[in-house]
Every structure is written in structure tokens, then in C-alpha cells.
């Protein structure tokens, strides 16, 4: 009797694995990983297709999709059109998120302390060293800022968060651009490095007068004190879904060769200045077209049905008309054996 039962279970398991559709694998950025995991869960329930996503970091994702060991790669930093061409890849944005500077100032509430990109750059360059410096006091006339030394905290590991933050500092300050520049990891002039969002927020929490920067979703979950930043239109904005969406809406999506989309320092009145999209990479001439088609179908499904999941995780979806545009691009640009790889199912 137990043997019989075991056999029938085995048969059932075999039948179900053979019957259910394929499973796909992708690898890359850790920033959008929670959203992709939730999408994959819902997508599996809806279609039976299993998506494995491994958050190994953007660099690893680019390497693996170039080598063809995964169906799709993911990167927090868009590849330049010439790099895409060299690797034979196509990229498209999937989600939008923001980076928030955080502080540890006794008595300060969320968004109460105001800074500008130029001041932030000078703090990270080590030129403004105290909270009661005249530059900071000038744009915070109502606050009584303490005479505390500013402890600068940054990410120690290479990350898309650092890329967005340093891109913003480079746009705001010529000195930053010349002396440091923008990348996943830079040669920080001063400060302490914390590993990951949790490392940075731990150092900031433990040090009075510290300033750091982390992903907005992480700041919100952990109740870190965020700042107001002056955006390009001259207004002070606070980080949040609204100000991220304002930045996304203001971006020029239609005229970005290779979908090289940067959303930093957008000119819209309500835009948060440190916003970025995260990207998916697939080969333009895939060796396994069926797998790439299934991956694209997954992201098309995510565009159509995944917005509530995205919002719950404090990300902003790509604007709907742009999603439509991207889906049309797939049929045009991703070709195998002379035929478009993507088709609606």
C-alpha cells in the first residue's frame, strides 16, 4: 500500500514537471530583485512558467548574458549604445526607483533639512565639514542647525545606487565631475564605506551628524531620516513615488538611442533629482529564440499586470505609453532566422 502510494506520487510529480512549461533563468542587479521575484511568483501562478532570477549584481548579469549562460541579464546602469552593439545586446527599462540621502541629526524630521546638489557635492568632497556651515544655513533659514561635524558615509561595494548618486553629484558640481566622476564605485575623497544599504544605514544611525545615501525603498522600510533636495527647476522636493513619477514623466524616452535612459536631475517642477531606471538585457540575435520570447512575454506581462506589485515595493512603473513602445521595439529589433522573436501569446 505505501509503495503504491509512493508510485502514484512519483507519477504525479513526473507528469506535472513534464506538463508545465519551461523554466527560464536571468541574473543581475539586486536593486529590482524583490520586484522581479514577486512578478515571477504571480506569473507562475498565472501561466505556469517558472522564472529564476539571481541577484548577483549588475556586472555579473552583463557578463552572464553576454556569455549566454542566462536568458536575460539585468543592470542598474544602462549600457552605452556602442557597448550594447559590441556585446550584441538589446536593453529596455523595466522599473524606476530613487536614491535618498539620509541624515542623523537630533530632532530633524523627514524632509526638514534642505540641501542642494552643489552643497551635497561639497560635503562629499570634504569642503563643508559642519552642519552649521553658512552654505547650509542659507537655504535652511528656519532651522537651528547644530555645530556638529558631518560624518560622510558611502557604499563600499560597487552598486547602481552609487552610480545614480555620483551621477547626480557630477551634474551638480563641476569640481565633483573633475575630481571624482560617476561610476558604480568611485575613489571617495573622504568618508566611511558601509557594505550595502544596511551597512550605510547602520553607520548613519550610529553616528550623530552622519550623512549617507540609500535606496528609497530601504529608507522607507527602516524609518531613516530623509532630506529635501533642490531640483533643477529650483524647487525643493522630497523623495517618494510622486516625485519619482514626475521625473519619469519628464524624461525624453523617445529620443534615447539604445534606450540609454538617465532620469537624474530631470527639469520637471515636482521631480526628485536622484532617480534611475533599471534595465533588462537580452541578445539581439538569440541562439535560443524560444527562451528569449518567453522572457519577453514575462516582462510584457509585468508591464501589464505588475504595477500594484511595483508600487507596494516603492518602485514606480515605466509610463504606460512607453511600455507599449518598448513592446513594439521588441518585434522590430530582436530577430532570429529572419523572423521577430517576440510575439504576443
Amino acid at each position, binding site marked *: 500500500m505505501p509503495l503504491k502510494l509512493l508510485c502514484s506520487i512519483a507519477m504525479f510529480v513526473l507528469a506535472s514537471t513534464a506538463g508545465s512549461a519551461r523554466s527560464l533563468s536571468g541574473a543581475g542587479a539586486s536593486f529590482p530583485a524583490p520586484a522581479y521575484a514577486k512578478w515571477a511568483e504571480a506569473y507562475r501562478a498565472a501561466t505556469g512558467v517558472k522564472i529564476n532570477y539571481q541577484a548577483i549584481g549588475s556586472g555579473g548579469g552583463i557578463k552572464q548574458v553576454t556569455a549566454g549562460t542566462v536568458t536575460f541579464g539585468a543592470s542598474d546602469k544602462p549600457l552605452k549604445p556602442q557597448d550594447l552593439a559590441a556585446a550584441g545586446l538589446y536593453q529596455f527599462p523595466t522599473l524606476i526607483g530613487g536614491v535618498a540621502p539620509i541624515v542623523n541629526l537630533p530632532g530633524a524630521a523627514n524632509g526638514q533639512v534642505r540641501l542642494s546638489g552643489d552643497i551635497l557635492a561639497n560635503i562629499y568632497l570634504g569642503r563643508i565639514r559642519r552642519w552649521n556651515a553658512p552654505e547650509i544655513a542659507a537655504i535652511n533659514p528656519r532651522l537651528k542647525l547644530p555645530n556638529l561635524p558631518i560624518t560622510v558615509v558611502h557604499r563600499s561595494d560597487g552598486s547602481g545606487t552609487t552610480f545614480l548618486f555620483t551621477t547626480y553629484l557630477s551634474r551638480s558640481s563641476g569640481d565633483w565631475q573633475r575630481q571624482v566622476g560617476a561610476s558604480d*564605485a568611485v575613489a571617495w575623497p573622504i568618508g566611511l564605506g558601509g557594505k550595502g544599504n544596511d551597512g550605510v544605514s547602520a553607520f548613519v544611525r550610529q553616528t550623530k551628524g552622519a550623512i549617507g545615501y540609500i535606496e528609497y525603498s530601504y529608507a522607507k522600510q527602516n524609518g531613516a531620516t530623509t532630506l529635501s533636495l533642490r531640483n533643477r527647476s529650483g524647487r525643493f522636493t522630497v523623495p517618494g513615488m510622486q516625485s519619482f513619477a514626475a521625473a519619469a514623466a519628464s524624461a525624453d524616452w523617445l529620443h534615447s538611442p539604445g534606450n540609454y535612459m538617465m532620469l537624474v536631475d530631470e527639469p520637471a517642477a515636482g521631480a526628485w533629482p536622484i532617480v534611475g531606471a533599471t534595465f533588462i538585457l537580452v541578445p539581439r540575435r538569440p541562439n535560443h529564440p524560444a527562451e528569449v520570447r518567453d522572457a519577453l512575454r514575462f516582462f510584457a506581462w509585468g508591464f501589464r499586470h505588475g504595477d500594484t506589485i511595483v508600487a507596494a515595493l516603492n518602485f514606480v512603473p515605466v509610463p504606460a505609453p512607453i511600455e507599449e513602445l518598448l513592446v513594439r521595439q521588441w518585434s522590430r529589433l530582436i530577430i532570429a532566422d529572419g523572423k521577430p522573436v517576440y510575439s504576443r501569446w
Partner: protein
Amino acid sequence: MAEASASSAIERRGPGEALFRFACAGAATLLMTALAGVVVSLAIGGWPAFRAFGPAFLYTATWNPVTDVYGAAGPIVGTLLTATIALSFALPLALGVAVFLVEFCPARLATPIGIAIELLAGIPSIVYGMWGLFVLAPWFAAYIQMPIALSAEAGSWADTVFSGTPNGANIFTAALVLAVMILPYMAAVFRELFLTIPPHVREAAYGLGCTSLEVVHSITIPSVRRSIVGVVMLGLGRALGETMAVTFIIGNSHSLPRSLFDGGATIASTIANEFTEATGALHEASLVALGLILFLITFGVLAIARALLRSTDL
């Protein structure tokens, strides 16, 4: 002469013995091949960095992924400094713990304490890292670093040695965490070593009127001197290569540390921090080159230990 007779004995015993010998030789060869393979692949992977920067890679402290200029001096100094400080704390403590357990501790307590030490040695390094970040660093900043910084006169030697961001993430606290990590391991092995000394030797010394200090100093430690050097080197090896715990707490700054309480980086922490997101070819090669340097440092430590052992003529 003796060897010849041994090999003829093996031949007499037939194919089973030859097979056994072959299998053992095979295992040793496999290990050596794997080791050589690691060195060769590290050398090949790191070659672009050595070619681009030459010997300056070893003694310059610039680490700039934006301009693609790399120098390993910061991480090399950080690695040697943290491991040395950690060892200087851990060695006397580990010896003290082991001597206490063997010489003074009541037998009923010695066993549970010994087991506890072995359990400590088995705690994963990430746990030590989180303890360092959330418990040790804030405590150290509030009760040690701040008082020292406030009492040091500006410009004095103490100001130079102990300056740094007052939040406890620095070379010194990283070394403290490392010391805590290697201490139980070293204490456990020392205890085992001391227990191998025949009891009648020590009893004879006591019989001659030696005090406890004299027995430890003239009998216990000298009789396991050779092994002690070995244990120290293994502890040093672990401290040199420890990654996660150090990454959490060392402050991760690539420049040369300016003081004991300044942030720094070790070779292992730099690789752990940057390898996943290293997209530039030269960046990746520099990280692999760092790996090779760490390998060579560890190898050098072991070689020096061997040389010391030979010269002391035990």
C-alpha cells in the same frame, strides 16, 4: 638501505599495497595540481593589471574605478596591519586560556569550558561581522574612541595615532573582531597541545619544587614550541584571509590608513566589495591581482614560519 628494504616489503605484499600507495600519491598530486592551477589562473587573470601598472601596483595607494587607475598599497597595508594587531591580542590570551584550563582549572569545569571554546570557534564569520557592526563599533566609539579623542591634545602623538571618525568602524576594531575570531581556535589547539605533554614530566618538575609559573615557562611551553609556531601561523593565515567580518567594520577606505582609528581596507574586503559589480576589464584584473598578492603573502608567512622553525633547532 632502509628505504630499499621498505620498498621490497611492499612488492612482496602484492597488488593491494601498490594500489593503496598509488591512491595516496594520486591524492597528493591532485592537491598540488589544484594549488598550482589556482596560482596560474590568478596570475593569468591579474596579468593585465601588472602589465598596466608595473611594480607601482604594489606601492601606490590610488584606487579609482572611474579613471581605471589601481594601486594595491592601501589594502596590502590594511591586511598586514589588522592581522598583526589581531595576533598580538589573540596570542597571549589564547595561551592564558589554555594554560588555565590545563594547569589550574578544576577538572569538572575544564571540559565544559573546553567545549564552549570549540563552539566559539565554529561561529560563522558573518555573525562576528554583524556583532562588530551593531554592538562592538558603537560601544567602542562611545567608551574608548571619544574619550581618547577628547583627551588628546591637538598635534600631539596621541592625536595623530588615534584620530578618525568617531563611529568605531576602523582598522583597530576590525583587528579586535579578528582577534575574537581567531582566539577560540588558537586556545582550543593550544589546550590539545598541552594535554599531549606526558603528565609525569610536569609532575616531576613539581616534585623538584618548581612553581606553576616555572613549570609553564620551562616545561609546558618549551616542549610544544614547534607546534606553537604552527598554530600562530594558522591563526595569522585565518586573520589575513578573513573577509565578511572585516568588510562590515573596517570602514572600507582604499587610501593608506593615517591612524590606528582610521578607516581602511583589506585585500579580502576589497575583493568582496567590488568583484560583483566590476565591469571594466582592468578593474577585474586588478581584483584578481589582489587575490594573487594575498595568496603570496599567506604563502610567505608559512615559508617564514618554516624557516624560523629550522633555525631555532629544536
